[in-house]
């Protein structure tokens, strides 16, 4: 029907083959390279493993002085940290691209299509452009705090990756207080935002900062309570421990083995949206109300840092949700004994073990991307709620419900301890219910699309 839009979509695509190849190479190559580096290096973050690898390469570090060994390990950890932060930055940029493509499709637009095939390199172009912008500090701003705040935000974001898993043995440090640690360091982000709001000495920024403080601190509570549900079910705070207590199949996930798990996930998801300042909780930077909120006075690299964190947070929140509720990296048919057998008794793991690590990483990344996509959909679908509604939603609904799920999970765990079959039954019933729900959802979507005379069409990208 739409003359303009149809004409544009009917136009043949003329992306040169070289551009397509370059885009594919970077689009898949860059994250693969970084993930491969994480894959290769993160198992070595244990000093014994590192020493074993070096001994295999002909360097026996155990003969070195303890201080030299320590320095070597520290240098190694810095390299690993750099790689993981680079991964975070690249994921953040790619998320921007993906979000823009998805939103363009939802909004009958074309979206990014200039730089590289499907506009893939736009995020690099944008980053370069931002770096060349004037780094402006308002005359009336508190200059020290104004400069400092992006680093608070970036630090809070980067520290999360310490305890964020990528695969079975792929984690920088499997802290025994993993989820607690992540909740704690994420709070640095709100400190940064509050500082940005105050130091800008702009009324809009102040509004944004105050809103952000109220919002993030409120939503920490339901988020933390909901995160306690999987913690109680697995009996550990460690991220890897929580994943290990789940299975690979949906009926073994924390979201489904406990009838309250899905409710807890819902609360956690909403609270994470609020903490990440995503629609419908994007009040701190609500464009139509506060111009750009706490970001109003920022430009250039400082703005780029805020931006990086905002989109990188999508990965973080999705990865945490996958870890807590959706079985993390668990590979079907590969229990812990398979991993142990593949590793072998030697000092260095066998080739099969590395293969399993790759599989677990693929599983984890895929699940994370699915949840990330969900967050993107939500952003481009819902309007924004008002500040008082945001508070009442948190304190009147999410917090009480989180407490209910918390207590109910305690009781459920008592039941499971008495009759372990209960969790299997719950898993089966919940998964069946989800399949039915997915079927009805798909049918309704199809009906909605055909009601306006459109058809389901996946070709027009």
């Amino acid at each position: 029907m739409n003359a303009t839009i149809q004409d544009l979509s009917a136009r043949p695509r003329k992306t040169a083959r070289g551009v397509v190849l370059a885009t594919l190479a970077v689009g898949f190559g860059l994250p693969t390279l970084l993930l491969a580096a994480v894959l290769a290096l993160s198992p070595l973050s244990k000093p014994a493993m590192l020493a074993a690898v070096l001994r295999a390469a002909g360097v026996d570090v155990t003969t070195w002085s303890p201080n030299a060994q320590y320095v070597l390990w520290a240098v190694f950890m810095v390299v690993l940290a750099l790689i993981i932060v680079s991964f975070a930055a690249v994921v953040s940029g790619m998320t921007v691209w993906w979000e823009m493509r998805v939103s363009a499709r939802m909004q009958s637009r074309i979206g990014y299509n200039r730089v590289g095939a499907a506009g893939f390199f736009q995020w690099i172009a944008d980053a370069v452009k931002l770096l060349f912008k004037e780094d402006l500090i308002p005359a009336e701003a508190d200059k020290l705090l104004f400069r400092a705040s992006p680093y608070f935000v970036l630090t809070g974001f980067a520290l999360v990756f310490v305890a964020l898993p990528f695969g079975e043995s792929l984690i920088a440090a499997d802290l025994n207080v993993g989820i607690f640690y992540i909740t704690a360091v994420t709070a640095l982000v709100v400190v940064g935002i509050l500082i940005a709001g105050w130091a800008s000495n702009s009324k809009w920024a102040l509004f944004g900062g105050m809103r952000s403080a109220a919002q993030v601190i409120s939503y920490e509570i339901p988020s933390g309570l909901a995160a306690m549900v999987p913690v109680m079910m697995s009996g550990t705070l460690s991220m890897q421990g929580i994943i290990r207590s789940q299975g690979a199949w949906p009926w073994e996930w924390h979201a489904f083995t406990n009838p309250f798990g899905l409710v807890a996930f819902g609360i956690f998801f909403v609270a994470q949206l609020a903490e990440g300042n995503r629609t419908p909780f994007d009040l701190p930077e609500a464009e139509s109300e506060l111009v750009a909120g706490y970001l109003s006075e920022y430009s250039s690299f400082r703005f780029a840092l805020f931006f990086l964190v905002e989109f990188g947070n999508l990965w973080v929140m999705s990865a945490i949700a996958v870890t807590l509720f959706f079985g993390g990296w668990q590979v079907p048919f590969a229990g812990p004994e398979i991993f142990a057998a593949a590793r072998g008794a030697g000092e260095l793991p066998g080739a099969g073990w590395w293969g399993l690590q790759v599989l677990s990483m693929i599983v984890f990344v895929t699940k994370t991307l699915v949840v990330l996509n969900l967050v993107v959909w939500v952003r481009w679908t819902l309007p924004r709620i008002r500040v008082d509604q945001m508070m009442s939603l948190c304190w009147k609904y999410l917090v009480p419900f989180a407490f209910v799920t918390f207590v109910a999970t305690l009781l459920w765990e008592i039941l499971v301890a008495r009759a372990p079959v209960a969790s299997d039954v719950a898993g089966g019933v919940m998964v069946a219910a989800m399949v039915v729900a997915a079927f009805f959802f798909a049918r309704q979507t199809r009906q909605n699309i055909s009601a306006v005379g459109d058809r389901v069409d996946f070709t027009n990208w």
Partner: protein
Amino acid sequence: MDKLILRRVDRQNEEMILNFGPQHPSTHGVINFLVETDGEVLKRATPDVGYLHRSIEKIGELVGYPGFMPYTDRVDYVAAMFANEGYAIAVEKLLKLEVPPRAQWLRAISCELCRIASHLVSVGTMVMDIGAFTPMLHGIRERETINDLIEALCGARLTYNYHRIGGVAFDLPEGWRDKVLAFLDHFDRFLVEYDRLISFNEIYIKRLANVAVIPGPMAVNYGLVGPNLRGSGVDWDVRRDMPYGAYPNFKFNVPVGKGFYGVSGDSFDRYYVRCLEMAESSKIVRQALETLPEGEITAKVPRNIKPEAGEALSRVESARGEMAYYVVSDGTNKAYRVRVRTGSFTAMCIIEDISPGLMVADLVALISSLDVVAPEIDR
């Protein structure tokens, strides 16, 4: 304004004065609001208009009668057809011209299409101000088709300059009627989809229902017109109650705000009345295309328009409510006085009295639910 500055001097420490505009994403053009807030709650929002004043009324006295027609487009560039029509009718009254029926019908068709386009912008930006971006672009997509259709009709997409004193400028192009009918078939389904997409969204309703309520009598006292007035439950539509042009020949309903999700006169009513009006406009265009008479598209108008001394007032139902042109002639070929009465200007006046106690986010909802357009306020 002086009062405001005085208040500013002895204000409490908790209060903050915000310049909400002139460059603000949700003031829909260059409008300034001096907002006194205590945290998120407004003490008062004072509109400060005049940033887009272009002396259009004075221009009307300086150029000849036909020469003023392109300027009327700029009175309200979101719905320029109505400004054309209002001026044309006023001058025709001065000249005592009889407009041929085909021209009357073409005016109705073009105006109703323009009303749909204008309301699409209105409901779209309203949704965007509430924070959802996607439905707005769906609205703009449909408006694009209307722009294409009107471009085929008169060659312009925004400032149409289509109506003429005594008729309209061009007849229908070939195949245009079928294109319009095909669009309307699509558009009626689109309205249902749009409602499902955003109008009945829970968050959206919660944001708008019972917010910034304007009771019916208050709306009348402040001179609100059009969808803003009907949103407050006052059943008044110039097209039906003081019919002009071809409108007596069409059957259509006048949607009135009944408090769809809250009380009558809240922001949601003002929004939803526009959604319902689009469906009615679609009906009117269908009827007009069906009953379109043959014949001339302009009356015989003298080359040099010199109306007898006198005055004429035309009232048309614009997308932003009743638009009136008051033209005084002194017998020369230039008007002695041209006065334009627009809906947005009176809508701005009510903001100051509705705003106390609202939240910052509600002010945004109020402004966009009143559908003010900056050039129409200032002219």
